[in-house]
């Protein structure tokens, strides 16, 4: 649809990211509390909420904590939300499944962002399965305006049906900007709280009764979708040519509209539970019914279970993102676009692989691990890049916190032998997310692992969010700071086994790790230096490493650190990119001939 900026009485138009629009929707709905853990592509939702001063907004140490706090706020009567990436929903699945039973007082929304195509994720899971498994309604918007509208509506639905509601986004919706007519926010209202153990105390006697309520609730939602207003408004039948009818939702809807503009479409706004009557009505109007959905055959299998004939995954893959061209090729004779440039005949474009930044504190640590030739169980963060050349120092990465558990598993599988040449590496934020419980387990079960905490004083990969160890909250106000040393000590790591090093001092770091590897008790090495991209880690402008070309012996040692700010010239002598150099001094430490020198601070 075309919009106009002008005209009287029209709402103000803004171009918003899908994520910003979700935040706007929550704000317009009068949300009181939002607690989340950052994760691409969901992070900007909570960051945007933080700009609305009226809302209590925070980073939680993990998704389960965020969800539980939101559940508490809801029970007390406030509208509350928690946001996460798809794998974050695994972490908060526990509270989700039982909040489905207890229901809500103030509206409660779980917002989850999937990542088909894995632009920045470790798997490609389809979060719609959570809606069915937890018996919670799930809405799925297709653009920013729907992000705002659906989020706002999700709070109403939540209160009307006494259930949490899941908003499902994905990368192309979260990270696309489109026009949103902005409305004034509703007032924040906190409902009365009344003690009601039958509703909120989920022990067997109560939960047995609540399960009945949950099943009745789902049936009622399906029934109400058949009415002409309310939930039915989330769905839209667009009748065009009746030869081909497509059922779709989310980003796939947009590809369908471009690919086969003449096809009739049932666009689902709620993907769980499904509107059986509406689907049957649509199916009866078209000659051929096709389901177009990214990832799993979720809608397709449900429709088949209704006894309706349809096509789906026999035409389309379960892998990666869809495109207009692939849908067009599968469903129509319309011409496919033709390239203007014969790309087969072009020279090869050299890669731009993701690299650790100039001044990145992780670099010195991975160099040390590379020299030690240890086995490394890794974790989720920028330091996952330590698995790539030139260091190739990481052996296994699974999920948040798993580095510690996997190192413990290596220990137990070999009666401790593996721990003499295995380390776990984990970032500060990831350690607080779910590494700490693993460390407690390792101490308790008398492991002898060496864990390295890469403390760069920020949650780096997701774009620099604060966490409990940084000393600042989401609004960058001063906040109480967790001491990683004291925390490790408190779960039973011996104080003499907790060592703090500066990873730029890569040889000293190597020595300390070697000493701790030899110990047959749990050790923690904290490699501490702020991320080079945050104010405390950045060198002052104009200060950088300098080269003394008289002393340079062209040995190439400085080049091996693969610093983006240090280039080997044709004469095999280093050239410093003074704009990019962060003056960390790692290259200085690599030079045995005193040919490099740090700029004076």
């Amino acid at each position, binding site marked *: *649809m*075309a*919009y*106009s*900026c*002008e005209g009287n009485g029209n709402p103000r*138009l803004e*171009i918003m990211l899908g994520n910003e629009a979700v935040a706007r929707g929550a704000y317009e709905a009068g949300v009181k509390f939002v607690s989340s853990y950052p994760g*691409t*592509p969901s*992070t*900007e939702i909570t960051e945007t909420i933080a700009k609305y001063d009226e809302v209590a907004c925070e980073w939680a140490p993990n998704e389960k904590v965020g969800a539980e706090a939101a559940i508490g706020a809801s029970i007390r009567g406030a509208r509350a939300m928690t946001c996460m990436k798809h794998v974050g929903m695994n972490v908060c699945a526990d509270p989700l499944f039982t909040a489905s039973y207890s229901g809500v007082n103030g509206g409660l929304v779980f917002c989850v962002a999937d990542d088909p195509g894995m*632009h*920045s994720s470790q798997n490609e899971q389809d979060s719609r399965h959570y809606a069915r498994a937890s018996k919670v309604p799930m809405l799925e918007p297709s*653009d920013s305006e729907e992000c705002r509208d659906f989020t706002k509506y999700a709070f109403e639905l939540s209160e009307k049906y006494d259930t949490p509601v899941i908003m499902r986004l994905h*990368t*192309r919706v979260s*990270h*696309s*900007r*489109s*026009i949103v007519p902005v409305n004034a926010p509703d007032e924040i209202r906190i409902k009365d709280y009344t003690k009601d153990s039958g509703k909120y105390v989920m022990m067997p006697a109560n939960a047995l009764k609540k399960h009945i309520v949950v099943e009745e609730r789902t049936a009622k939602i399906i029934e109400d979708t058949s009415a002409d207003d309310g939930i039915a408004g989330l769905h839209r039948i667009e009748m065009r040519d009746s030869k081909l009818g497509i059922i779709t939702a989310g*980003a796939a*809807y*947009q*590809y369908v*509209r*471009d690919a086969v503009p003449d096809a009739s479409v049932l666009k689902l706004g709620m993907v769980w539970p499904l509107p059986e009557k509406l689907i049957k009505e649509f199916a009866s109007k078209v000659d051929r019914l096709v389901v177009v959905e990214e990832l799993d055959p979720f809608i397709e299998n449900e429709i088949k279970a209704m006894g309706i004939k349809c096509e789906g995954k026999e035409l389309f893959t379960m892998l990666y993102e869809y*495109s*207009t*061209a692939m849908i067009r090729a599968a469903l129509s004779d319309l011409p*496919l*676009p*033709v*390239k*203007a*440039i*014969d*790309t087969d*005949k*072009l*020279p*090869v*474009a*050299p*890669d*731009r*692989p*993701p*690299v650790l*930044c100039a001044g990145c504190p992780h670099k010195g640590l991975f160099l040390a691990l590379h020299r030690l030739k240890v086995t490394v169980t890794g974790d989720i963060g920028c330091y996952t890049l330590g698995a790539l050349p030139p260091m190739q120092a990481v052996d296994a990465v699974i999920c948040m916190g798993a580095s510690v558990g996997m190192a413990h598993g290596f220990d137990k599988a070999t009666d401790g032998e593996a721990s003499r040449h295995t380390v776990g590496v984990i970032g500060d934020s990831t350690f607080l997310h779910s590494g700490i419980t693993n460390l407690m387990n390792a101490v308790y079960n008398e492991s002898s692992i060496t864990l390295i905490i890469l403390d760069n004083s920020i949650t780096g*990969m*997701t*774009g620099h969010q604060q966490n409990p160890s940084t000393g600042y909250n989401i609004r960058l106000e001063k906040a109480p700071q967790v001491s990683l040393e004291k925390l490790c000590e408190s779960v039973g790591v011996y104080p003499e086994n907790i060592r703090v090093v500066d990873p730029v001092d890569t040889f000293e770091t190597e020595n300390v790790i070697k000493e701790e590897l030899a110990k047959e008790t749990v050790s923690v090495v904290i490699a501490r230096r702020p991320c080079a*991209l945050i104010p405390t880690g950045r060198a002052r402008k104009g200060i950088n490493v300098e080269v003394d070309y008289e002393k340079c012996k062209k040995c190439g040692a400085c*080049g091996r650190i*693969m610093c*983006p700010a240090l*280039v*080997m010239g044709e004469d095999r002598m280093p050239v410093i990119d003074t704009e990019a150099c962060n003056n960390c001094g790692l290259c200085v430490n690599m030079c045995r001939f005193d040919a490099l020198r740090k700029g004076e601070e």
Partner: protein
Amino acid sequence: MSQQLEASIVLEGVGGQGTLIAGKLLGILAMKLGLDVKVSEVHGMSQRGGSVITYVKIAPEVHSPIIEEGTADYILSFEEVEAVRWAGLLKKGGVMIINKQQIKSLPVLMGQMQYPENIVEALRSNADPEAKIVEIDALSLAMETGTSKTVNIVMLGALSNYLGVDEALWKEAIEEAFASKPKTIPGNLSAFEKGRANG
């Protein structure tokens, strides 16, 4: 103000070159034209120094936010080798504007991969005759405004020669896009004019 326009515009380059801001500015321009617009970007692992791409689609009604192979009306390539990487997106009759800047990636700097020579010639000799490939030294033009940061606006200035939108409207969009940093507006307006004169 309502002008008819349908354009799929790709902005690509290297992280830190300002493609995102240029994308936002085109979004503002589309709104001023009373049109629908979608601007799509990928966040996360594409940090500084990585290959980055922003898609902008402007039309009376926009569906998919993604610009696929052979469908870009315009490609603004902020770096030479990135023009090769994304060349397949250009459609027949499309226009590709290439900033002559070369930014060498780590594998090139380390001598593991070659940075190709004569990129623009290679693109031209393999392009459909209806396609137009334009070179511009956006970095030098930006430096004339006092900062390399205006490369993105120089590129938009070059694009403005093809889009058929009133110059005054472009300038309004620039003023709006940089409203929070008013000191940068004169430099950006000047960068726009330089791009328009040289693109």
